């Protein structure tokens, strides 16, 4: 019988606020998205110069992952290939694609070009933490908790992964939302069971 699987941490970034494990931990309502992300990066005292070079989608997902894993993830528990990343969104990398298209009218920007795929955000997360497990990025019209639950459970139940960062990283123009979940098995205790209902409940947290 498969072991129970749990949501051992969550991080939501939406409406210029950050929620860690369902509690508000930071907000900066006056800023546009780039300024908000920079203020959050500084607030959490993260030191990673590559952050400045990322596109906004990668900044959003990477930052959410840093906050998700802080104090909640023990890298020593797992081999690099045991931790995977499964993300999804609606707009792929369109936000950066359009910015790149604008630069290409003059001299195309190599630094922007490398972010014209949505899965680059997973690469940034994996480089930071040395994850070498299964990676997948899916495009849906909206957050599909049922699919994420089924897909990640399958990876964990078949021992392809022992832990997984999964969820939603969406950005287009000034509209954005990310909801990341750390999924592990056998944690028990006060951890939240990995179910479609619990994913949706946490995802909708900032709506009250």
């Amino acid at each position, binding site marked *: 019988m498969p072991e129970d699987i749990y949501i051992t941490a969550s991080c939501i970034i939406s409406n210029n606020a950050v929620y860690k494990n369902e509690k508000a931990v930071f907000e900066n309502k006056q800023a546009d998205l780039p300024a908000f992300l920079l203020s959050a990066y500084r607030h959490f005292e993260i030191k990673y*110069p590559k952050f*400045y*070079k990322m596109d906004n989608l990668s900044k959003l997902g990477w930052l959410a992952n840093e906050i998700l894993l802080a104090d909640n993830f023990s890298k020593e528990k797992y081999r690099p290939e045991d931790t995977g990343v499964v993300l999804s969104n609606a707009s792929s990398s369109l936000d950066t694609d359009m910015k790149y298209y604008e630069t290409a009218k003059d*001299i195309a*920007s*190599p*630094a922007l070009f490398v972010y014209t795929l949505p899965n680059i955000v997973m690469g940034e997360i994996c480089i930071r933490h040395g994850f070498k497990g299964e990676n997948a990025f899916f495009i849906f019209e909206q957050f599909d908790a049922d699919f994420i639950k089924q897909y990640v459970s399958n990876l964990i139940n078949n021992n392809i992964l022992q832990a997984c960062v999964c969820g939603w990283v969406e950005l287009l123009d000034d509209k954005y939302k990310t909801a990341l979940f750390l999924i592990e098995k056998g944690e028990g205790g006060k951890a939240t069971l990995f179910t479609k209902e619990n994913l949706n409940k946490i995802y909708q947290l900032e709506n009250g």
Partner: protein
Amino acid sequence: MSDLKTQIIAQLNLQDVKPEDIGDDQPLFIEGLGLDSIDALELIVLLQQNYKIKLSNADEGPKVFYSVRTMAEYITAHQAQKV
């Protein structure tokens, strides 16, 4: 060379770096500023946008982009050729 350092910082989005942090002869790649291959492409764009210089021979890259001084010397030499 101070202007060139400012341009490099802006082009590569090195927000934690000030012009005075970059030594004139400090290697820009790997052990120095830690730049990568995408940064190298951005430096080529910088030469093209700011100085109208096209790096025609890719083999020259490591020598030209070794440090701020080698970049400045390359720019000066090309500007002198144009006059």
